[in-house]
């Protein structure tokens, strides 16, 4: 047997630009929204890579570009030795068995006119994984795996609560026995008490089936909890990527530092002690991102170099990648700023 590559997914220079057309007759392309602008990272077999960032930073687009739901503008997506960006037709269809997605909104991502049995059974039929009566048996088995009563197989999505629907979505993703699942904000739409149920379920399934996750979310506490490594995005670029503990204990990018300090902690005594880094202003438009480092317009410790030169995304030891000119001194400088 050939030695398996440690990385299940290798992404290099991924770009996803959406053209902006003029309103005139010719509909000329007048610009591009650079939703994802040059990402390079890899996902190891069996790990959970968390992807965080604020709305509009391109994290969901990244997930979709990896799955080829959007065809990337540039860059390569190598999945288990195959180059996804070059696949077409039947080869791509075969590939989709291996890569699946769980969506944010459990209300919009299930067809309201299909029963649970049809929703979860469809991918099994499409890929000819089971035939005849076995499909139903398999669907029942999957429902049990995600903690739903198989008795519900003939019901429609509207008969379920948000958390139960998310379980249906998870069962559908598992139906084709994938290796890799993109979880796109899978718990954001759920109530707090239900979130924990789904998070635990995702962790259990990972252990059971050896799944690899790309976990996209804006809730940093949830991402920290579930991920082995975490990547932080800002305006289409990755600014920091590190093992989960490392990132939270020792954030090196000023944006990560601000982001972490902004998360409220459910403990009044801790909250009173905390010093917040409050960023000024809003996220600039991805249509016309700032020159140099994209973050320089809001960075509390900006220097002149940041405004003209884009910092490289480089390893500062132990797989801790940062894209910042002042990465090594950022914490110290930030401390000074706060005083």
């Amino acid at each position, binding site marked *: 047997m050939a030695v398996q590559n440690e990385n299940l997914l290798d992404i290099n220079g991924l770009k996803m630009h959406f053209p902006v057309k003029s309103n005139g007759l010719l509909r000329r392309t007048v610009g591009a929204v650079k939703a994802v602008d040059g990402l390079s990272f890899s996902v190891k077999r069996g790990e959970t890579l968390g992807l965080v960032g604020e709305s509009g930073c391109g994290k969901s687009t990244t997930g979709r570009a990896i799955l080829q739901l959007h065809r990337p503008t540039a860059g390569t997506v190598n999945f288990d030795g195959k180059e996804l960006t070059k696949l077409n037709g039947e080869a791509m269809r075969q590939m989709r068995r291996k890569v699946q997605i769980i969506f944010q909104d459990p209300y919009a991502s299930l067809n309201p006119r299909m029963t649970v049995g049809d929703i979860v059974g469809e991918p099994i039929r499409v890929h000819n994984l089971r035939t005849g009566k076995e499909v139903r048996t398999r669907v029942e088995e999957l429902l049990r795996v995600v903690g739903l009563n198989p008795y519900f197989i003939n019901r429609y999505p509207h008969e379920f609560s948000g958390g139960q629907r998310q379980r249906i979505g998870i069962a559908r993703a598992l139906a084709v026995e994938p290796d890799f699942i993109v979880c796109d904000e899978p718990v954001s739409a759920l109530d707090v008490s*239900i979130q924990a*149920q789904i998070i635990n379920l995702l962790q259990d399934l990972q252990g059971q089936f050896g799944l690899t996750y790309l976990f996209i979310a804006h809730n940093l506490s949830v991402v920290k909890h579930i991920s082995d490594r975490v990547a932080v995005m800002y305006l289409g670029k990755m600014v920091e990527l590190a093992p989960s503990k490392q990132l939270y204990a020792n954030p090196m990018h000023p944006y990560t530092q601000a982001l972490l300090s902004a*998360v409220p902690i459910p403990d009044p005594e801790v*909250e009173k002690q905390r010093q917040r880094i409050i960023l000024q202003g809003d996220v600039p438009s991805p249509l016309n991102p700032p020159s140099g480092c994209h973050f320089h317009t809001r960075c509390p410790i900006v220097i002149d170099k940041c405004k003209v030169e884009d910092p490289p995304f480089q390893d500062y030891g132990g797989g801790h990648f940062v894209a910042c000119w002042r990465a090594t001194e950022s914490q110290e400088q930030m401390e000074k700023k706060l005083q």
Partner: protein
Amino acid sequence: MAEAPLLEVKNLQVQFKTADGVVNAVNNVSFSVNRGETLGIVGESGSGKSVTSLSIMRLIPSPPGKIAGGQILFDGDNLVDFSESEMRKIRGNRISMIFQDPMTSLNPVLRIGRQMTESLQLHMGMTPKQARNRAIDLLSMVGIPAPDKRLDDFPHQFSGGMRQRVMIAMGLACNPELLIADEPTTALDVTIQAQILELLNRLKNETGTAIIFITHDLGVVAGMTDRVIVMYAGRVVEQASTNELFRNPRMPYTIGLLDSIPRLDGIQTRLTPIPGLPPDLLEKTNRCPFAPRCDFVQEQCWIETPSLRQVAPDHTAACLFDIDRDQRQVMAEKKIAEEEAALDAALEDVLAHEQAS
């Protein structure tokens, strides 16, 4: 003697008539807010927290909704008995409200200035000129750059965080005694949320306005409020000062909530979720609404709805038993041990079988 509270809600009952029957959205809710205090109301969707706040403003759509009983005493007056025209003098003037979604709560076809000056002219009797100047002051107070120019912009020209600032400025326009903030930061990104929370804290200290802060985010509650009430299934199930509630939660639902959220500074490897689903408010029962999901449920819980009782000084909880957080931990460990024992037994069975054959 302590000063009379600014707002006192007594045994509030709100019902909605639906095709499936009467929904008791708010059941016998009582609480009070003191002057200058920030009260947090925590609960999940359907817990009745928003309906409670809308009732205070008398904004429950009627029909189908109706305040079926109770009193809402604001500075001594019972708002439930007020006529619509009397309410109009209170709304936006003495009590104002900030809503969750800054995208939909501003009128998209009117300039910000027009929307801001409306209440100033109406309630404060200002001339258009005075109102405009005051609006400029308010916008700069909430940190909007170039306020005199931005006043002539439409809502869509503002970002989400900026719109929420405009909403806050409008809410504070007439120096209200009470500001109701209904999930004011839920729709915002975390760095923008930090900006808005800091702003609210600063304004509270400057103006002395009492705030009712409604949210499902326990982290926000911890940092923003003096006192907290926890709602579940249209009832208040726990009430205490913020410090006390987080240090010593006594209602199994509150304990469950605190255990089910991952903490940024925590090191849990596994969350302890609350099992089951949120309650159906259509059902009319005499049991504890949390009983089907409770780890500590006992026979008595199925036949009696617990009312709030004192469990510690200035701390009430709606639970029949004296439960605290440590017990849940013990319970969870016991459960795991039992499961492991069952597994071991099953394994031994299999092994014995194999040996026999």
